[in-house]
C-alpha cells in the first residue's frame, strides 16, 4: 500500500523531475565536464584537438588579473546595490503603506513600473540621460550650478551609475514583497506601542523592522543572487568599459565563451562565480539564522 502510494507520488513528480534533469542537471554536468577540457575553436573542428586539462582552467582563472577585476566589480555592485535596493524597497513600501498616503494604488503601480519595463530599452534611455554632453542629468545639474560629470566615461563613476540604474530598475519588485510583509504585521502591536507612548520612529525600530526581519532577509537573498549575475546593464550601457570598470564576471564569461569560443575556460569561470555567490549566500543565511530570521 505504502509503496504504491510512493510510486504514485513519483509518477506525479516525474514530468517536473525529467524536465529539471534534461534542461538543468544535464547541461550543468556537461558544463562541469567542459571546464576540465580546453574546448575551443580547434576542438570544434575536430574532437582530436580537445585536451583534458584537469584543473588548469581553474588555475588560469585564479591567476587572471581581469577575473579579479571583474570579481571586484561584481562584489562592489552586490555590496552597494543590494543594501540600496532593499533600503529603497523598504522606504517606498513604508511610504505607500502609510495611513497618510493618498492615491496608494497609483503610487504602487508607478513604483513597480520599472520592473516590468524592458531592460534593454530603459538601459538605452539611461545611457542618453547620463550622456556627458547632451544628457538631461548634466543639464539639470548645470541649472544648479554643478559642473557636468562624465557619468559613464569616468572609471570611478561608471559603476555607481550602473548601480543607480539597477536599483531603480529592481527595487519595485522587492517593494511589493515588503509591502505584503508590512500588511501582515498585526495592528494591535502598533496600538499597544502608542498606548505606551512610542512615537513613529520607535514604532519603526521596535515593531516594524523586527517583524519584517524574515521578509527583508528573503528580499536581500533574492536580490543578491540576482545581482551576482550582473550582465545586461553593462552590456547595453558601457560594454564593460571604461577601463573594464563595469566588467562583471558574467560578462567576462560571455567574452571568453561566445566571442572567443574558449568554452572550457568560460565554464570554469561560471563555476568559480557559482562558488562565490554560494559562499555569499551562505554568509547571509548564517547571519539571518543568528537573528532567527530564516
Amino acid at each position: 500500500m505504502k509503496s504504491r502510494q510512493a510510486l504514485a507520488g513519483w509518477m506525479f513528480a516525474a514530468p517536473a523531475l525529467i524536465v529539471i534533469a534534461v534542461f538543468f542537471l544535464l547541461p550543468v554536468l556537461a558544463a562541469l565536464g567542459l571546464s576540465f577540457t580546453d574546448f575551443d575553436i580547434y576542438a570544434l573542428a575536430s574532437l582530436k584537438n580537445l585536451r583534458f586539462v584537469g584543473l588548469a582552467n581553474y588555475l588560469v582563472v585564479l591567476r587572471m588579473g581581469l577575473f579579479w577585476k571583474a570579481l571586484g566589480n561584481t562584489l562592489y555592485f552586490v555590496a552597494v546595490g543590494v543594501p540600496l535596493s532593499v533600503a529603497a524597497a523598504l522606504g517606498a513600501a513604508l511610504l505607500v503603506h502609510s495611513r497618510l498616503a493618498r492615491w496608494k494604488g497609483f503610487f504602487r503601480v508607478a513604483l513597480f513600473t520599472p520592473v516590468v519595463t524592458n531592460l534593454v530599452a530603459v538601459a538605452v534611455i539611461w545611457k542618453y540621460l547620463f550622456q556627458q554632453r547632451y544628457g538631461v542629468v548634466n543639464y539639470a545639474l548645470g541649472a544648479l550650478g554643478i559642473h557636468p560629470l562624465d557619468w559613464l566615461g569616468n572609471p570611478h563613476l561608471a559603476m555607481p551609475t550602473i548601480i543607480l540604474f539597477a536599483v531603480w530598475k529592481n527595487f519595485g519588485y522587492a517593494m511589493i514583497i515588503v509591502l505584503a510583509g508590512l500588511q501582515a504585521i498585526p495592528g494591535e502591536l502598533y496600538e499597544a506601542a502608542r498606548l505606551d507612548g512610542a512615537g513613529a520612529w520607535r514604532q519603526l525600530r521596535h515593531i516594524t523592522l523586527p517583524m519584517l526581519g524574515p521578509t527583508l532577509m528573503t528580499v536581500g537573498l533574492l536580490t543578491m543572487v540576482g545581482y551576482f549575475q550582473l550582465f545586461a546593464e553593462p552590456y547595453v550601457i558601457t560594454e564593460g568599459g571604461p577601463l573594464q570598470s563595469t566588467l562583471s564576471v558574467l560578462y567576462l564569461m560571455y567574452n571568453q565563451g561566445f566571442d572567443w569560443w574558449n568554452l572550457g575556460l568560460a565554464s570554469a569561470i561560471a563555476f568559480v562565480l557559482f562558488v562565490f555567490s554560494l559562499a555569499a549566500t551562505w554568509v547571509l543565511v548564517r547571519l539571518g539564522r543568528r537573528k532567527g530570521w530564516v
Partner: protein
Amino acid sequence: MRSRRLLPVLLVLLTALAGGCTRAAPGGRIVVLHFWAMGQEGRMAARLVRGFEREHPHIRVEVQQLPWTAAHAKLLTAYAGGTTPDIAQMGNTWIPEMAALRAIVPLDGYIAASHIVTPSDYFPGIWKSNVVGGKAYGVPWYVDTRLIFYRKDILAAAGFDHPPRSWAGWARMLAALKAHARPGDWAALLPLNEFEQLVSLSLEQPGSFLRDGDRYGNFQTPQFQAALRFYLSFFRDGYAPRIDNTQVASVPIEFARGHYAFYVSGPWMIQEFATLMPAAVQNDWATAPLPGPTGAASNSGIAGGASLVIFRNSRHRAAAWQLIEYLSRPSVQDAFHRLTGDLPPRRASWARPDIARDPYAAAFRAQLERARAVPRIAEYEQIVREMQTIAARAAWGELDVTQATALMDRKTDAILAKRRWMLAHGRLP
C-alpha cells in the same frame, strides 16, 4: 545557458533551410545556390544576383541576409550542424578561422583557370588577407581600410591648407588645433575601445606584432613601441578625449558641430557623413590617407573588407564559383558600389567613371595600394582586443609603453598556446 537552448532550435531551422538544396524542377535540373550575406550587402546582393540568374537560367540564387552582430555565431553553429551554405560573404579576419575549421575550400584551382579573377589586378594587401598557409580561401568582394576624415575649415582656421602627411606633421597640427579649440572641443576622436586605429598605425611600421610564424607576440619591438607612443600621445597630450565609442551619441553630428577635427574610420563613414551631416558643413570635410611615420611614402593601413568563400559542404562548387566570377566583374562591382557605397577591391573596377570621380574615395584608392594584411590566424581578433585593453590602460596612465608592450606579449603568448600545440602536431593547414 540561453544560447545553449537556442542552439538545437537554430540547427533544426538551418537543416530545414539546407533541405531545399537540390530541388529538381519539372523542366530540368535547377541548381539552387545558397548565398549568405551580411548587413547592407545582404540586402543589396539579392538585386545583384538577378543578372547572374538571367545569364545562367539553370541556377537560382537564394540570398539569406544575416545581421553582422549574429553572423559569426551563426556561421559557427551552421558549421557544427553541417548546414553551411554554398557561398558566403565573409569578413577577411574570419577566413583564417574558417580555414582552420576546414569549413571552406581553397580556391587556387579555380583562380588559376579564371579569366575574370586575376590576382594581379587586386590590391596586394587585400588579396594577401585571403591567403592562409599559402592557399587563397576567398576572393575579395569589397574593401575597407581606415584613414582620416577631417574638417578642412577647422584646419584652415589654425593655418593649415592641407591634411597631415607624417606623424610629426600630424602632431604639430593637433597641438595647433588644441590651442585653437573652444572649451569642450577636441582635436581628434579615437575611441579607446576600438583597436583598428592602433593596428593601422602599427602596420605603417615595418615588421609585425607577431613573430615566429605567428606563434608569439612581438609587441616589444622599437617599431611597435613607436606606434604605441604616437597613439598614446593623442591622450597624454590632450588631443583626443579618453572615451569609448559607447559614449559618442552620433559621430556625424558631433563632427558637424566641430567637436572633433579628425576622425579615423572606414569607407562606410562617407555615406554616413554625406547623409547625416547638415548641408552647411558638407563642403568642409574631406578624407586623406593616414599620415605615415616619416611622410606620405610610409603610409599604410589595414587591408580589410569582406570576401566571397565556398564551403566544403557545398555540392555545387562549380556553380558557386561562377557566381563569384560574376560578382568580381568590374561592371558588376560598379553596380555594387552604386548600391552600397562599398569600395571595390580591384583596380579595373576603380577605373569606372563613377567611382574615379568620387573625391572622398580617392584617398582610399591611394591607401589601398599600400594597405597591409593583418596576421591571418584564428586568434587575431582576441589578440588585438587584448592589445587595445592594455593600450587603453596606458592611455589612462596606468602603464608606460615598456610595461604595456611587455604585458601585450605575455597575454598574446598565452592566447597562442593552443595554436603552437596545433602547429607542433601538424594539425593546422
